[in-house]
């Protein structure tokens, strides 16, 4: 089971009302390489990955939910007190017509999240390479998002999330090495 912890993994600060940026950030909420896709991908693959790396998929999958909550906090803060006119001007008119101020699992273009974004091949090498690719794609998305805002506080939170993708990618690479070598039976260092 999961137990909720009433705190964000990293402080999220947003220093200006910018619903335009919220529309772009939604890419990491409900997009193909977003945090929801990441969490569901790893937590689903863990059932059929070799025992030696189940723990890693379980823990990274769990951390992704903390990142999903950080993105939600950013979007929430960026749109919280925006007027209908401001949302429309930010390109969120179509979103407003369907959802008011509510968050929705969709990408920056408004396409709803779909399970076809994620794969579970049952082959450990294929699954881990998908996971590594997902981390690098998410890292790239964070770079483009950092490029699109001059809000240094928002950039700060996005840089934290970008670095986490880099660490997760290292861990998945190590998981590949473990699967390849059966390192636990060998002296590794």
């Amino acid at each position, binding site marked *: 089971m999961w137990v909720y912890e009433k705190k964000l993994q*990293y402080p999220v600060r947003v220093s200006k009302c910018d619903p335009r940026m919220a529309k772009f950030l939604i890419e990491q909420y409900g997009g193909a390489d977003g945090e929801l896709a990441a969490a569901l991908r790893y937590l689903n693959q863990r059932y059929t990955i070799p025992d030696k790396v189940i723990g890693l998929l379980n823990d990274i999958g769990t951390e992704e939910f903390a990142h999903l909550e950080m993105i939600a906090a950013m979007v929430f803060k960026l749109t919280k007190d925006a007027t209908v006119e401001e949302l429309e001007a930010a390109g969120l008119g179509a979103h407003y017509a369907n959802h008011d101020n509510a968050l929705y699992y969709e990408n920056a273009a408004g396409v709803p999240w779909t399970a076809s974004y994620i794969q579970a091949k049952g082959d450990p090498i294929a699954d881990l390479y998908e996971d590594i690719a997902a981390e690098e794609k998410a890292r790239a998305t964070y770079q483009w998002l*950092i490029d*699109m805002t*001059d809000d240094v506080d928002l950039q700060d939170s996005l840089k*934290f999330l970008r670095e986490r993708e*880099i*660490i997760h*990618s*290292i861990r998945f690479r190590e998981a590949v*090495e473990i699967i390849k070598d059966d390192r636990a039976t060998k002296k590794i260092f």
Partner: protein
Amino acid sequence: MKANPEERVYSVFHSPFDPCPPKPYRTYVVPVNQFIVFQPPGLPQFSPAEALRHGTLWPALYSPYTSRKFKGE
């Protein structure tokens, strides 16, 4: 702006018929994780407060990134 050691630069072909003013070069990032196969034990660590701010416990695994907005790109 301090040069980012992870940044790579390349140029692209410019046609006389390109409508936008040509950019002199393009860049991409090769993060530190591309050079680590298996993290060795005992790497120097950040303090907890610094680790949180950097998004990693280990300085050797930290990858800086500067907004292109701030670099005028």
